[in-house]
């Protein structure tokens, strides 16, 4: 979908982007990451010609980007930056409609598309349609920014640190939402960040840059288990490599069948779940650190897991609540299985 071939940007003698070649396949979520000044943002902006490249070639959808007038190219590529990039004098609906208006869509189609996007980003029920950007919360403004980038249904979406200016809690929600939108729309996304956790969470491929050069371009798991060199290892953070790896894994990958009982009797397994008539776990028998093997612990909703939870979070809950197993629950609260401390250690990725 996007091909960078020997891409170079020179300012005088300095090469801020130096001979980068990589391919982003259709539907891929590619994160460009690296320390400040590594050229990640410059690389992104060369894709939609906000910055002209000095050498090399960029193909989008097989076409050399220099064959199109820059405005035409940019209307075909979604572009999202930090929320301050919203037009302060336009209402939310007008902001989202920016590119469709430039493309002269009929107004009925624009209105339809705006409503669709407001619904996609769960912005439809708060009367946001007619608000001005400064009347929005940081998270809302950021969603509008992404909705605007998606408005004309581009195949490619470029995002330049879009969540850089929001608080950690909101960022977490926005990341989850972007992952969902990516799954739902199958867009090809190129995303710039300097936050490794954000990259590992969102990316299907990570391009790690340093001093204008591409150091490693790989799936997140490969980056973690097979870093190309010490720079990669350092940048990922040696200390919590294991936790980063777990943050990429989901509970369902570690979930195994649980031992059930309907009464207080201890079954043969060291960890047994007492369930009610609807198969909902009520108590954990055994499996509590520092207690006897027969100890009964009432299940607390705060130490349960769901299949799509990250293993990092599951592990964190085990540690915090001092249990060696979490029940994995489905949407109705029924017991699907369990994840255990031993399982975290034993599972080979």
């Amino acid at each position, binding site marked *: 979908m996007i091909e960078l071939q020997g891409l170079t940007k020179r300012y005088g003698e300095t090469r801020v982007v130096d001979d980068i070649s990589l391919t982003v396949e259709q539907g891929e979520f590619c994160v460009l990451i690296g320390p400040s000044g590594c050229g990640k943002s410059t690389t992104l902006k060369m894709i*939609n010609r*906000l910055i002209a490249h000095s050498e090399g070639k960029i193909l989008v959808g097989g076409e050399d980007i220099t064959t199109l007038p820059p*405005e*035409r*190219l*940019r*209307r075909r590529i979604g*572009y999202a*930056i*930090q929320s*301050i*990039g*919203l*037009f*302060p*004098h336009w209402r939310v609906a007008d902001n989202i409609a*920016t*590119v469709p208006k*430039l493309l002269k869509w009929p107004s009925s189609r624009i209105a339809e598309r705006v409503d669709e996007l407001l619904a996609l980003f769960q912005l439809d029920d708060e009367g946001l349609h007619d*608000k*001005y950007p*400064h*009347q929005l919360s940081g998270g809302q403004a950021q969603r509008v920014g992404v909705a*605007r*980038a998606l408005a004309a249904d581009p195949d490619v979406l*470029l995002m330049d640190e879009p969540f850089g200016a929001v608080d950690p809690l909101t960022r977490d929600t926005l990341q989850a939402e972007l992952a969902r939108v990516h799954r739902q729309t199958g867009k090809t996304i190129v995303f710039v960040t300097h936050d490794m956790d954000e990259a590992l969470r969102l990316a299907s491929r990570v391009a790690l840059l340093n001093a204008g050069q591409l150091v490693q371009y790989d799936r997140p798991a490969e980056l973690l288990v097979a870093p190309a060199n010490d720079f990669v290892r350092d940048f990922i953070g040696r200390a919590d490599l294991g936790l980063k790896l777990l943050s990429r894994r989901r509970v369902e990958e570690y979930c195994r069948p649980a031992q059930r009982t309907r009464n207080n009797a201890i079954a043969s397994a060291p960890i047994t779940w007492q369930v009610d008539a609807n198969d909902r776990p009520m108590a954990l028998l055994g499996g509590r650190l520092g207690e006897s093997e027969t100890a009964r612990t009432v299940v607390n909703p705060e130490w349960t897991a769901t299949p799509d939870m990250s293993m990092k979070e599951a592990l964190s809950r085990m540690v915090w609540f001092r249990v060696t197993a979490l029940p994995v629950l489905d949407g109705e609260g029924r017991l699907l299985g369990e994840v255990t401390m031993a399982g975290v250690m034993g599972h080979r990725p």
Partner: protein
Amino acid sequence: MSRAPSSRRVLLIALGALLIALVLGMEQLAPLFRALFPDQDPAMYERESFLNLTLAHLALVLVSSLISVSVGVAAGLFVTRPAGREFEPLVSTLAAIGQTFPPAAVLAIVVPVAGFGFVPTLVALVLYGLLPVVQNTVAGLGTVPSQTLEAARGNGMNAWQILWRIELPLAMRIIIAGVRVSVIINIGTATIGSTVGAKTLGTPIIAGLVGNNLPYVIQGAILVGLLAIVTDLAFERLEQRFSFGEGGNAS
């Protein structure tokens, strides 16, 4: 600004009505002026109707402001484009010189060239009104955040679209503030055009000063003053139209 917008509106309407009433019916106040100034004869300026004087005054201000604003905004736009950026200091200096020149001096220079009346006054007013427009156009365009401009470019707007849809609307409030200053200055300054024979509301004032007739001065001055205040209030409302939801009085 501290008062609620609605009370400003009432003030504008009330003063506007008073202005119109005085322009049309100043003559009705003749008994009042005769009572206040029993020694003056005549106590009411009657060589020309106040309606004619006001219209002539407005025409002068309108034409000079139109020229100041078009030239000033154009100059401001030019020096904020990539092609004209290096001319910015030059243009700012020229505009500043235009305002440091006293209008009376401009009249003295222009009259021998252009004769008496409307034209020299127009030249003086245009020069005098240029600076606030240029200054505020440059300042207003400067307040547009660079991220907003980058977003506009990144979303596929061309240079014209960015100017018309993004830069000018966002700068408009500050540009209008400059126009407001320029027009208000010109409403007052236009009166001195009467010293070189232009017909303005300054005519009764000059006549009164020359003939030692205080009622004439008051009659001219009160209309100029009211005109300036009403125009100022009207501009204040116009500026609010470009507040985009801020200040609570969006259009």
